[in-house]
């Protein structure tokens, strides 16, 4: 066994050359590529962190701004709600007042209408009652009633002032005795008692007026002495009307 030292040295040189060449064409380029990418990655990560920090800051500001906007919106919403409530209350109060006014006016109208209707009803009722009374009284128009009216007429003439009775008796146109029906055979008696009550008169004329229903009235151009159911009913109608 022998070792060729020339060969040993040649192989050592060969390996050294290989180490030098591979360090130039393999190890350094690949390691440089790795280091370059690591550096780039670090730079990218640094830039990303800076960008993320900016984004976080912007997000914080945006969050604050959004919170401010939310508060402002809430305040505006509350203000609008308060305004709307105030406006609605005002409108509601106005509507309520208007409704109350309308209701009061309607009540007044209804009251007036009711009063008017009641008055109308009263008037109609009084008219109807008067008509009924007139119809009923027409059936009572007999000699007894006529004599009663004659005595009442005589009493009324007696109650007149003497001057008025004298002026009536001295009226040149005379007086007129009006009855609802023809007095017929009673005219003499009636004339006699009236002449007596008046103390004499120039002329007494007898006329009929069915509107009197029953009774005897004394009429002159300037004076009328009402003494009939028609006059009584007229007074009753007036009294009822006044009472209503």
């Amino acid at each position: 066994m022998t070792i060729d030292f020339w060969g040993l040295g040649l192989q050592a040189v060969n390996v050294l050359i290989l180490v030098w060449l591979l360090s130039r064409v393999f190890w350094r380029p690949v390691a440089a590529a790795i280091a370059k990418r690591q550096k780039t990655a670090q730079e990218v990560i640094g830039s990303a962190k800076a960008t993320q920090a900016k984004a976080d800051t912007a997000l914080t500001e945006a969050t604050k701004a959004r919170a401010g906007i939310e508060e402002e919106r809430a305040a505006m919403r509350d203000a609008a709600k308060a305004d709307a409530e105030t406006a609605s209350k005002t409108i509601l109060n106005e509507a309520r007042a208007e409704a109350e006014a309308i209701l009061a006016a309607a009540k007044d109208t209804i009251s007036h209408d009711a009063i008017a209707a009641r008055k109308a009803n009263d008037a109609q009722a009084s008219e109807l009652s008067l008509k009924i009374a007139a119809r009923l009284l027409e059936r009572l128009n007999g000699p007894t009633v006529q004599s009663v009216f004659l005595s009442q007429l005589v009493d009324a003439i007696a109650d007149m002032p003497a001057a008025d009775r004298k002026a009536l008796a001295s009226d040149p146109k005379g007086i007129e005795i009006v009855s609802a029906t023809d007095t017929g055979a009673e005219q003499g008696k009636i004339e006699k008692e009236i002449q007596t009550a008046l103390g004499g008169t120039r002329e007494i004329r007898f006329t009929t007026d069915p509107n009197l229903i029953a009774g005897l009235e004394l009429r002159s151009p300037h004076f009328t002495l009402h003494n009939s159911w028609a006059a009584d009913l007229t007074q009753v109608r007036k009294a009822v009307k006044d009472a209503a």
Partner: protein
Amino acid sequence: MNSPLDSIALFYLGPLPITQAVLTTWAIMAILVIGSYLLTRRMDLVPGKRQAALELIVTTMDTQIVETSGANPAPYRAFIGTLFMFILVANWSSLIPGVEPPTAGLETDAALAVLVFLSVIWFGVRGDGIGGYLKSFAAPNPIMIPLNILQSLTRVFSMFVRLFGNVMSGVFVIGIVASLAGLLVPIPLMALDLLTGLVQAYIFAVLAMVFITSTVEDGQHSKRNTAPAPSPNQKDT
């Protein structure tokens, strides 16, 4: 069959005998250098499959150096990595019919061992200075100087013998089996030789890194031990 311990010169360049191992070494050098040049021509920031594979090789080598020594891998990467790649390719070149791996010869393995021995000195001196390197032989105490000197020689000799014995024996066994049994019978042995070649390349590179690292660390340890002690009045900073 020639003796594996003999190397026959094919021709001479002056006094230099050009053997089969030298020619094969030149071919391996050409393949590695040209292949590396072609593969590393365009290195992009975003790696493709080719660049990713190359970076995986470099990263794995750096990881092995760091795990072995704990040191920055940059100063040792080219030497240790080239040793590993050259020995691996040389070992696996035995799979090519008619090619005898350079590592199956005495001169190549001896040259590699000598380079490791010299690299230990080089990195030791570069890291700790001549004094630091020489003091590394006195670790842990001066009594160990003769043993450390003997160890520095024997450990590289053991590397040389280990690599030569494993590779040469594999080639020799395959040759014997092929000559006795036929063409396809040595295939399982060749597959085993693949594994042996990978393991031996890894062991050689790792041992070289361990030797370099231990020398550098011993020199730094000796420096720390010989540094003057701080005075009692000096405050710690």
